[in-house]
């Protein structure tokens, strides 16, 4: 078996349809739709009152499901790809193995929740960007990109889904999301702790890791999917991020990046609308 497994070779059964971030960014459909397409609503947050709430929640749950598979695969690869001691500490690998078990449970939970919500495996496309972030040749960059950026996003997503379950009167969904949220806080904290320990005497490596985390954060804020604004489907779970080891400054940075991404997307939608108006005139 090779070390450093390429994203193109991720093994899936026939139900799955994989797309890249490039495919997703090239898709004319967007999470943040124009006012008209969204039924004249100015609140885009995923709540049961949204007209498309059921479908949006099902789509998000499927996204969680495939994300958990890739998180499982990424944690597993970190156990295998690096030599113990010289490339990655034994204790770090133990943490990654523990994370693999947690992610395996999350896949199980996501399958059961998807079934509960009426979704079939493979009903939505699988974006493989999470695993791509787990392919770095430096374990510190993997921890920054996956544990801090992507698992941080998972904290935001699970908090939003937990609230959705609460508002929709679905204790089954709320219960499961709460348990997964507890695990994700642990994973992010794991990433924060290891990042600090492994780069304690190597500021350059820490800088590179934080830059990589910033790139991944920005990538996942694409289209304003996640931000403090009610216009974003997913909120920023500030309290849980604090528990996971993010400093106030770091949370503010993510909020700013998310807000910027939302504004960029709104400007792009406005440009498209103006062009369509001109073309129709």
């Amino acid at each position, binding site marked *: 078996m090779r070390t450093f497994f390429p994203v193109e070779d991720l093994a899936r*059964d026939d139900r799955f349809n994989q797309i890249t971030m490039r495919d997703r960014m090239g898709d004319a459909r967007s999470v943040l739709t124009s006012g008209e397409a969204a039924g004249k609503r100015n609140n885009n947050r995923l709540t049961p009152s949204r007209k498309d709430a059921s479908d949006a929640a099902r789509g998000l749950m499927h996204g969680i499901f495939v994300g958990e598979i890739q998180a499982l695969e990424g944690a597993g690869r970190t156990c295998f790809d690096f030599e113990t001691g010289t490339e990655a500490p034994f204790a770090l690998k133990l943490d990654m193995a523990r994370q*693999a078990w947690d992610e395996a449970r999350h896949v199980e939970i996501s399958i059961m929740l998807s079934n509960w919500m009426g979704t079939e495996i493979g009903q939505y496309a699988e974006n493989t960007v999470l695993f791509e972030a787990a392919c770095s040749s430096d374990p510190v960059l993997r921890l920054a990109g996956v544990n801090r950026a992507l698992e941080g996003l998972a904290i935001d997503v699970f908090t939003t889904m937990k609230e959705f379950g609460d508002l929709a009167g679905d204790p089954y969904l709320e219960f499961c999301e709460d348990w997964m949220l507890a695990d994700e806080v642990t994973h992010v904290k794991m990433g924060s702790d290891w990042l600090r320990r492994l780069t304690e005497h190597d500021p350059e490596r820490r800088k590179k890791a934080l830059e990589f985390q910033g790139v991944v954060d920005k990538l996942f804020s694409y289209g304003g999917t996640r931000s403090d604004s009610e216009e974003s489907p997913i909120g920023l779970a500030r309290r849980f991020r604090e528990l996971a080891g993010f400093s106030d400054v770091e949370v503010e940075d993510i909020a700013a990046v998310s807000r910027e991404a939302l504004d960029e997307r709104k400007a792009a939608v406005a440009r498209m609308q103006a062009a369509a108006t001109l073309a129709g005139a």
Partner: protein
Amino acid sequence: MADPHKPRAPFAPWDRRELPGLFDVEESARRIGNYKWAEMKLFEALGGWVATVPELDVKMRLGTHCYKHAWHSELWHKRLPELREMNPERLTQPANEAMVRFVEALTEPEAPELTIEKLVGVYRVFIPHFISAYTFHKNNTSQITDAPTIRSLNFILQDEFDDWRDGEMLIQSLIETADEVDRAAAHQATLEKLMLEAGGIAGHGSIGGATSPSVTAY
């Protein structure tokens, strides 16, 4: 109620533990170092394989088992300093060169069509050898002086039996043709021959018989 001042036997009539054991401190540490190395190689392989298997149920099971073997290696890592080995890495070694070749052969399959080979290597060869080495250790070490090792062995053996059953059931569910039976058997034989050369997880004498020189009975 009985008189609390009346002398009682230090060992209750039902306590049949015995003091003698087959391993001295040094031999016990050597074996545990071999166990830790082998458990590490196993959890690394299971983790690495997750991305390579298309079967969703197998993928999830490998992730779960990956952690169990990581935890076993952690238990052995923590036991080594208690056996006077203050540098656990010094004893974290393969039993011999043949064991290294066994692990290389075990982890060789990567293609998505080779799930049977991956599972056979782990659940029909590696884990059964863990079970036998651990059982031999548990049944032959001093029940009193080496009680901490026995406690870990009990936890670990429970996991090994559970995982072996999970893995064997997965293999049986994946094998659908006579050719696949042959594939599984051929791969098992290849690996079993390497394991024979290695003599088991802790080398020759893993389950008694040809004991290593430092093994003495007390």
